[in-house]
């Protein structure tokens, strides 16, 4: 039984990071209908920024994560303004190509700037916590708490605040939002800032567990796309639940069958869900 709980916990930890990446992606897709392939690169850049802040500037880890989120939010705003806004209203394929180009530019830019080598955060909080026969490092525990906190803050922000209300308004009906005087460009910047900050948080929080390198963004990007398709494009609860489901399936699959097949389980689950409910778990049926 303890292997079950151990793998369940591992799955939840992994899943919460997936959820964080997927949230940003689904938010941007839901509002601007842009498949933002560059999202995984923001995750990677966010991890690098945190890494340098911790290693070069000896900043506290959580302060570094916060600062990295702010910097990446700024980069997100610039990316929206410079690359995505001009192609808005053009054919969908244009935004698609822009996003793909950005992915390649940012990933190779990172290789050029920092080299392809793997970097390791200095160990932090690596003592073990044990309960109910499960043991995890304190760092993983804190990471999960931080992730849950970020998800809660985002939920509060979108559901309860005025800006959240305008974001939801544009997501539901762009024309109706225009009619009541909502500035869609401001909402676009806001959503890119939020999404990029979440991606930076995910990359920074996972950095000390895995390694930091220029290609670290690809796997979570693919997973996040799988999750938002699984959860329903543009759906926030779908992204959270989808992330956790994917994480748990991976965790249990790795524990009971083989870690080598974990991606197979994850994407297999996606295919099964979509064949039963084509719009995803929380997706709205297309009218």
């Amino acid at each position: 039984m303890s292997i079950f709980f151990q793998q369940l916990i591992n799955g939840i930890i992994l899943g919460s990071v997936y959820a964080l990446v997927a949230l940003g992606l689904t938010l941007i897709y839901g509002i601007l209908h842009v498949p933002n392939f560059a999202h995984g690169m923001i995750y990677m850049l966010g991890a690098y920024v945190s890494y340098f802040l911790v290693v070069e500037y000896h900043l506290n880890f959580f302060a570094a994560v916060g600062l990295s989120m702010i910097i990446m939010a700024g980069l997100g705003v610039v990316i929206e303004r410079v690359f995505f806004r001009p192609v808005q209203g053009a054919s969908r394929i244009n935004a698609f190509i822009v996003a793909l180009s950005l992915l390649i530019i940012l990933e190779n830019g990172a290789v050029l700037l920092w080299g392809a080598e793997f970097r390791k955060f200095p160990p932090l909080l690596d003592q073990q916590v044990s309960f109910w026969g499960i043991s995890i490092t304190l760092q993983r525990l804190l990471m999960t708490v931080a992730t849950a906190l970020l998800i809660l803050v985002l939920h509060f922000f979108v559901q309860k605040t005025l800006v959240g209300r305008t974001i939801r308004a544009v997501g539901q009906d762009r024309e109706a939002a225009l009619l009541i005087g909502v500035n869609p460009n401001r909402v676009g910047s806001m959503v890119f800032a939020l999404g990029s900050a979440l991606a930076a948080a995910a990359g920074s929080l996972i950095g000390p567990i895995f390694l930091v390198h220029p290609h670290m963004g690809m796997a979570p990007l693919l997973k996040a796309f799988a999750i938002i398709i699984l959860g329903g494009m543009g759906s926030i609860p779908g992204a959270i639940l989808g992330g956790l489901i994917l994480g748990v399936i991976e965790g249990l699959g790795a524990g009971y069958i083989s870690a080598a097949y974990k991606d197979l389980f994850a994407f297999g689950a996606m295919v099964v869900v979509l064949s039963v409910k084509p719009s995803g778990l929380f997706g709205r049926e297309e009218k």
Partner: protein
Amino acid sequence: MTLLRVEGLTKYFHGLAAVQEVNFSIHLGEIVGLIGPNGAGKTTVFNLITGFLKPTQGKIIFRNEEITGLFPHQVARKGIGRTFQATRVFEEETLWQNLITGCHGWLNSGWIQGFLKTSSFMKEERASRQKAAEILDFIGLLPLKEERAKNIPQYAHKKLAIALALATEPQVLLLDEPFSGLNTHEAEGIMSLIHKICGQGVTILLIEHNMKVVKNLCERIIVLNFGQKIAEGSFHEISQEPHVIEAYLGGESVS
């Protein structure tokens, strides 16, 4: 007093004129009908006025200020509200949330104040809640306020779209076929609602096909055909115009 004026309004789509050299004025407190056969350019005129399309040529002047080329959200903030032929509301939200969002679309206090819940923000928040309740009551949708927009019948849906347009406190309301798809009884309900809105000092410009409705409702009528204005005047006047009889009514006389 002239509230809204279009001068030489022209819109080309790929070399084809959808709207050509259209001039008209709307005066304060009027109910004006914009009619014409399918494809006459009526909705295009609405889209040009509200900034959803940019005119190829011509000017739009609202309260002595040129608003040509502004973005839709800016036009809405200036005081021009509109509805679409296919109603555009926030389907996933309740009627109450729809109106709150509508009243809130742009507040004076910024979002940081909203996050910190400053006193000026809270004051605006209270004001917008009160306004939302007033509008729902005015429109007659207060009993349905907890229903999600996607679950209410078509008639209520049409009213909700009008309510949402009123949330921005427009001085002119542009209604695109507010009666389409309604039965006689429901159409009468919308008609009395339009009179009621006009009674509150809101000027109305509406697109309509039903001649009986236009005859009863509109003080003045503008007739478009192939993107050009072919007549303007009272129902009696335009129904005498040979152009109108020929173009719009297929050669038969109107009465």
